[in-house]
């Protein structure tokens, strides 16, 4: 299972994720920059006779540590995402992959004023597949859902083992309700689904999209 099937689409997906991550890191740097500037302001004021306030200094230190922690999380996600292209076939935990994709998509879902949530999973749900292609098709699902969802929506996601198959259920998609013709899967999804031996089922009435991955033939 090579990356040739995705071609330009896969590269665009990779670029979109990296651009979003770089944007997040820029925001972290901007916060650190302002706090460093604030520290300089306090030093300049101290030189003019305004005593340093230890509480204010402590507050800056706390904010800097919080931003370092935030950046560390962003970079960990980026690193995991980058390594998803290391192997074309690998046994992975779909729950881990789904959680990573929710994190990578959080900035986008924020922009749409909606969010994704996953219930607790106690056991891993494993499948042998192409990790990058799976992430790509999950992103397309999330992207479609973000465009369908209404402001304030929370769309739930469940990962289920069904024999050898794995089902990823996206439910509570308010925009699907009342739609008679949903054009999913479109061409971009179809190419990936074929490569992954998966299918996409849309239930407009139930407001649900299910991504089915065949565990036997990947």
């Amino acid at each position: 299972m090579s990356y040739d099937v995705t071609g330009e689409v896969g590269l665009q997906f990779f670029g979109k994720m990296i651009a979003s991550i770089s944007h997040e890191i820029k925001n972290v740097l901007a916060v650190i920059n302002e706090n460093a500037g604030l520290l300089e302001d306090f030093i300049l004021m101290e030189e003019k006779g305004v005593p340093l306030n230890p509480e204010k200094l402590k507050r800056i230190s706390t904010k800097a540590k919080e931003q370092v922690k935030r950046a560390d999380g962003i970079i960990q996600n980026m690193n995991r995402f980058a390594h998803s292209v290391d192997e074309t076939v690998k046994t992975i935990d779909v729950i881990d992959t789904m959680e990573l994709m929710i994190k990578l998509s959080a900035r986008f879902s924020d922009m749409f004023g909606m969010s994704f949530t996953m219930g607790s999973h106690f056991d891993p749900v494993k499948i042998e597949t192409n990790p990058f292609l799976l992430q790509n098709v999950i992103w397309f699902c999330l992207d479609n859902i973000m465009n369908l969802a209404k402001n304030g929506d929370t769309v739930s996601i469940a990962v289920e083992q069904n024999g050898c198959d794995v089902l990823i259920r996206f439910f509570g998609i308010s925009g699907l309700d009342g739609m008679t013709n949903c054009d999913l899967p479109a061409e971009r999804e179809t190419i990936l689904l074929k490569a992954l031996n998966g299918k996409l089922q849309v239930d407009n009435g139930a407001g649900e999209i299910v991504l089915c991955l065949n565990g036997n033939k990947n």
Partner: protein
Amino acid sequence: MRVLLVDDEEELVSTLAERLSYREINADWVTSGLAALEMAKNYKYDIAVLDVKMPGISGFELKKSLQNKHPAMKYIFLTGHGSEDDFKTGAEEAGAEYYLVKPVNIDSLIKKMNEVIGL
């Protein structure tokens, strides 16, 4: 000079507002477009400094809404990492000179603020 700072990064706008206050610039801050529209109803601002990408209303959309009600207000845009398309739109909306990439140097920001209101 009275300034409205709008960015969904609360730590960023609150700190920037504090630093501007030490420079005798009266800056209010909010973290969403809707909150900005509310603030602009109650106070008269000379300049709005807007983050381009925010949840709900984008910086560009917010500018249009503010401009309808407050035609004299001037604008400076901030962006985390401008794509070429964002830059083109930002330059059209505010002029390339008033489209700043984060992290921003406060002295450069104040210089732009003075320029945009003609000081």
